């Protein structure tokens, strides 16, 4: 089956920042993204778990965005402007996609 090269960007970020991040992504011209829930995690700011939250402040989500290679830099710039001051990680993987016209 015919596949096409693309980039898969996964951004783990606090839930309170989700709206800002997806707005920035749309601004950077992405055609779509998917938001996955995160149960818990650990990093420089300590360990946390979703079931230990009274407040909605603490949770995180993972935003996955598949894009054509040529749009990667715009996306990273946009994402970075949002995550810069915040905790969270950004990882980029090479991938192949079906139905390239969608990206």
């Amino acid at each position, binding site marked *: 089956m015919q596949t096409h090269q693309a980039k898969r960007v996964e951004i783990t970020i606090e839930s309170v*920042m989700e709206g800002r991040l997806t707005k920035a992504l749309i601004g950077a011209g992405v055609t779509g993204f998917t938001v996955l829930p995160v149960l818990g995690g650990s990093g420089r700011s300590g360990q946390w778990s979703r*079931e230990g939250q*009274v*407040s*909605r*402040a*603490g949770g995180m989500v993972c935003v996955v965005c598949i894009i054509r290679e040529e749009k990667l830099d715009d996306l990273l710039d946009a994402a970075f402007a949002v995550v810069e001051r915040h*905790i969270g990680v950004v990882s980029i993987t090479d991938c192949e996609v079906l139905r390239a016209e969608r990206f």
Partner: protein
Amino acid sequence: MDGMLALAADNLLSPIILFFALGLLAAFARSDLSIPEAIAKGMSIYLLFAIGFKGGAAVADNGIDGTLIASLIAGVVLSFLIPMVAFALLRVMTGLSVTDAAAVAGHYGSISIVTFVAATSVITSSGLDSEGYMVAVAAVMEAPAILSALWLIARYDKGAAEMEAGLMREILLNGSIVLLVGSFIIGVITGTEGLDLIAPFIVTPFQGVLCLFLLDMGLVAGRGLREARGVLKPGLFLFGMVMPLVGSMFGLATGVLLGLSPGGVVLFMTLSASASYIAVPAAMRVALPEANPSIYLTLSLGVTFPFNLTVGIPLYLAIATLVTGG
């Protein structure tokens, strides 16, 4: 005095306090007991819905009091002012940075709705009454403190970022504020008739839900305390118990000046004494991501909340009774 001690003891042995303690203990012992996030959120929605509606129905029943507007304005002013006091105290008592101190201060200007509910229970079981619109006062006190915190940052930390456009809107339309205020208004509109209709859902089972909710808060507070041992220096810890007392004095003065009933004064004291752990932390994560959330969450939920629940509320009740002669 004896009555007071009996009351305090009664309070300490009430199911809600005991379930909070159970949660704390379970967390300290590293039990895997946990309430699913959706259930915890569902209970918090239930509480806001019930509190707002009952408050509104009470207002519809008693008529709109002349001091209602004055109380609302006083609430807004207190919510603005208390963070300034808290900030000054923090700079003196602790070694927190300007950012952390401002973030913590913001929490103390805002309120904890569960502390408010607990105070209402204690008032009722002492045979006192209170103004139904105190729920509305609680609602208006949620947000202003956030602005104070941001103002404190801008004032004392020149390098700090500007407040982002849209954040204020987000704060005011925060889900818990909208639900509390909305239910309050619906309670006012539908009055006692509406309340009768849904009382078997929001009145009779209320205390039971509250027990489970406090179990969850105990679990969360306990986990927070366990993980934040390093962060919670003695000065901070002390602040978490001194600040509610200081805050309550502002509430006392305001309540008495407004001529509220003894119960109303206790609630004003409680609101001023309590610290937010929902609306403000969320706003702080957006606006002040550099501030350490372990500090403000642990202080608010792990120190001040249990302090108010156990020592604070009976004390505020005693003081208010003494002062108002009620």
